[in-house]
């Protein structure tokens, strides 16, 4: 069961990584999105952007070699690759807002058929707040949602219309889940790919929005 969980998350991360192109500047959100860095095809070079102020995120440091001033946006110690650069928060978000970030990969509480995304406010809690998510979804050239297809108790996360407070309106381009890949089009969700072993009927049954399989 735990292995299955891990395989599902790895499928998502691996599949998102296939969307990256050589030279892309990419921001990865917390959780499954962070795992995408492990699956970048070896023949391409991707530059990872950290909204707390640098480009060129490198691998985790060896234990004892951490620089306390170099963390990623999730608070974990990381490194910076040769050719990377640090900057302040206006530049970090100027890169996003100014069209210099090719891809943002984010998780979701809910995502809908119009490309609306909800991932910042949990009903009944004051927080956690949007952090950089609203800037990311409105600024990145391409927004990919990487998410498990359903919640832990089996409810669909992909819906006709988000019920939770939105992070952004009509900003999601692609949804990669553990069941497959869906493109958000003006006419709704379009099936791009099924995870091997998944049928379109299963996918549709676990999705609270209509899925077309032809453009």
């Amino acid at each position: 069961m735990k292995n299955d969980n891990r395989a599902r998350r790895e499928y998502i991360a691996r599949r998102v990584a296939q969307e990256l192109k050589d030279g892309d500047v990419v921001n990865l959100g917390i959780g499954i999105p962070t795992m995408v860095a492990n699956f970048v095809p070896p023949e391409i070079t991707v530059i990872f952007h950290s909204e707390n102020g640098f480009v060129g995120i490198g691998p985790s440091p060896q234990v004892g070699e951490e620089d306390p001033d170099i963390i990623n946006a999730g608070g974990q110690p990381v490194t910076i690759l040769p050719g990377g650069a640090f900057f302040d928060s206006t530049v970090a978000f100027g890169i996003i807002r100014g069209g210099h970030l090719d891809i943002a990969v984010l998780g979701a509480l809910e995502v809908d058929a119009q490309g609306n995304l909800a991932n910042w406010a949990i009903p009944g809690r004051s927080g956690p707040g949007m952090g950089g998510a609203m800037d990311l979804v409105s600024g990145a050239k391409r927004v990919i949602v990487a998410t498990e297809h359903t919640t832990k108790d089996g409810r669909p996360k992909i819906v006709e219309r988000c019920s939770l407070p939105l992070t952004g309106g009509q900003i999601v381009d692609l949804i990669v889940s553990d069941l497959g890949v869906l493109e958000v089009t003006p006419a709704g969700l379009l099936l791009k790919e099924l995870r091997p072993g998944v049928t379109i009927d299963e996918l549709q049954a676990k999705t609270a929005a209509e899925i077309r399989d032809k453009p």
Partner: protein
Amino acid sequence: MEKVMTAVDAVNRVKRGSTVMIGGFLGVGAPQQLLAVLAKQMINELTIICCAADYPHNGVGRLISAGLVKRAILSHSGTNLEIEARAAAGEIEVEFIPQGTLAERIRAAGMGLGGILVTAGLGTAIEKGKRTIEVDGNSFLLEKPLKADVALIKAARGDHAGNLVYHGAARNFNPLMATAADLVIAEVAELVPVGEINPDQVMTPAIFVDIIVQTTGIEGGIK
């Protein structure tokens, strides 16, 4: 115009009820000593402006846990359940601002812009109470400058005049806040004589900094 003083003398310039900007991102780049001393001095009823709520005993969390904060303007609180509990109890009023907008609003205050137009938050709940301005057929939210009475910031290195240099991801909001408060207090890990920092490498020019405090040890553990 000697700007160097002790943390206690510096922090005593902060008045009860002040609006205080505090640098750092999850505690990295936070002026830990100034915050520890401020928490001890019990200067309360503060409005804080910061990137995130950090952790209960690290960064701005020190002020929150000490009960000094009545209002928090920030982008994220998810790492600090203490602030959520206090918000739920009606003790702290929390206002969330998208992180990039927060950074740019602080810069706008520092650089003297009357406002900026952004798309972050369009079509969301944060549109509420804001003007939407159309420019060449596109919609933007008008976001106003955000300033403070005091900025508490942290740099890796500073000279006696107040020139500052940051290291790594500890830069974050610090150079922005240095421009946007009436009183700017900078904590520096290393204090050097004037002239030691190459003028090309200064990240915050001395004219923005009023008071310099050298870190002498941080009271309270980190995270």
